[in-house]
């Protein structure tokens, strides 16, 4: 959200004017993504990682596998946790400090996508029932902000998890010792999030920071490989009619396979 409303109004006018001619400020079509590049396993000390560039948006995703006690109601299941960090180097308006609602939303939407698609087999992360399980941390680190963080991060998270490995433990008399060996994590599904932005009466994909700044509403839909939806999140200060929602779902559904192919990186 913009801090400075006056500039935002001027920007909004310009962006809407250009959109009404069927184009965008950077010359893209409404449904066109900027160039998406994902490099996997770029960090040595993390169990899995991915570096994502989406236009000028730049994100580092790190996966760390630690251990901890399981939740009381799921004693035999490991835990997947997603966290997002808006670093102050990424945007002039971002300051150090506790997470703001935008970064919480980003983490929660990506997290819910991974969880509700049951990407990881959590029972495979069990070490000693009720006592010790693997906890997989997915940290989304925004290095440069130019819009559409949710889509970039969700693709990056899948890429990082697919390359991630977990340590193998030897359990002797209720004591777990790492063997030093590592095996790849099983990634069962590959959900990707696609956000559709509404500006005036126009719907666009992959917004830049400026476009996000003046958006009326956003609908993020996470798709699995089989075309099923696993997460929806609406945000922004305007409502959407049922027809508009259908349109958003169709736009996103068309795009999802392309973005997934990039994330899987054949």
């Amino acid at each position: 959200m913009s801090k400075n409303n006056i500039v935002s109004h001027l920007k909004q006018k310009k962006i809407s004017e250009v959109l009404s001619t069927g184009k965008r400020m950077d010359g893209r079509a409404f449904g066109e993504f900027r160039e998406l590049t994902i490099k996997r396993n770029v960090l040595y000390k993390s169990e899995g990682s991915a570096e994502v560039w989406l236009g000028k948006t730049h994100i580092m995703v790190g996966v760390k596998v630690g251990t901890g006690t399981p939740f009381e109601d799921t004693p035999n299941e490991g835990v997947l946790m997603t966290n997002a960090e808006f670093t102050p180097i990424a945007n002039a308006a971002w300051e150090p400090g506790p997470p703001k609602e935008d970064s919480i939303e980003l983490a929660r939407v990506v997290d819910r996508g991974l969880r509700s698609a049951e990407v990881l087999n959590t029972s495979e992360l069990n070490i000693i029932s009720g006592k010790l399980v693997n906890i997989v941390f997915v940290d989304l680190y925004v290095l440069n902000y130019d819009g559409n963080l949710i889509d970039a991060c969700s693709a990056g998270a899948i890429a990082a998890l697919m390359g991630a490995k977990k340590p193998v433990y030897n359990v002797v008399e209720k004591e777990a010792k790492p063997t030093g060996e590592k095996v790849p994590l099983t990634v069962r599904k590959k959900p990707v999030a696609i956000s559709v932005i509404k500006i005036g009466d126009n719907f666009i994909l992959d917004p830049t920071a400026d476009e996000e700044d003046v958006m009326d509403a956003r609908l993020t839909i996470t798709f699995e490989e089989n075309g099923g939806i696993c997460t929806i999140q609406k945000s922004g200060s305007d409502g959407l009619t049922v027809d508009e929602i259908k349109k958003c779902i169709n736009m996103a559904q068309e795009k999802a396979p392309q973005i997934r192919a990039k994330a899987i990186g054949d």
Partner: protein
Amino acid sequence: MSKKPIAKKTTARKPAGRPRKPKVDSWKRADGRAFDELRTLKIESGVLPNADGSAYIEMGRNKILAGVFGPREMHPKHNAKPNEAVLRCRYHMAPFSVDPRRSPAPSRRDQEISMVMRSALEPAVFLERYPRASIDVYIEVLEADGGTRCASINAAAVALVDAGIPMRDLVAACAVGKIEDKLILDLGDYEDKKGQSDMPVAYMPKLGKVTLLQMDGEMTPEEAESALNLAIEGCKKVYEVQREALKKKYGIDQPQDKPQDLPPAEPEEEPKKEEES
């Protein structure tokens, strides 16, 4: 305000041990409801003497209080917007509202719900009428029973009207879920935890706009569409209860007492405080 306690002990008893598996084959659920039936819904407006507007809602066993303060001076001032009021929402759950006890500190979930509530309510409020001001909506969940964000939005919308804040429409919310491949309206706690997916929706019935839409779980795009339509039907039912709550507060529930030649009063535009300044 009457001296009677706000929260009455509901007669519905908590199922012992593990919740019973909902029987959906006969289209009846664990609590005997039909697939498109809401839980018992009670809304009362004007329950907090110190708030500018307030509402209490019981949606199933959810017990939630909403208080609205404002429009009032924004504090801290640098958060104010020069062209419109800022709507601020704070969703908070009491430590005793869930089992086991939760920490009173706001969690990530609380902050996300506060944010989606704000964007659910914002489109309904004429914020541009109050530049530089803040309108604060505080939600306290006293007892949680699944679907607290929807119940909170329902209470908050009524509380905003009760505060005399001009609004385009009420905002009504309810959730749709999927259990054993069947869509059901207004999930209770046991259904929420057992179900395959959950879709909370908020809707402005007069304007026909969806202002909150989230979904978790697994659905095909076609299922998502019918779930959305079912949720909107539920929201329309909630809307009627909200209207009744406001009519009751402002003593316009007996239309026969009114002179026949006057136009019917519009509860959404309660004029008492609107032109105060």
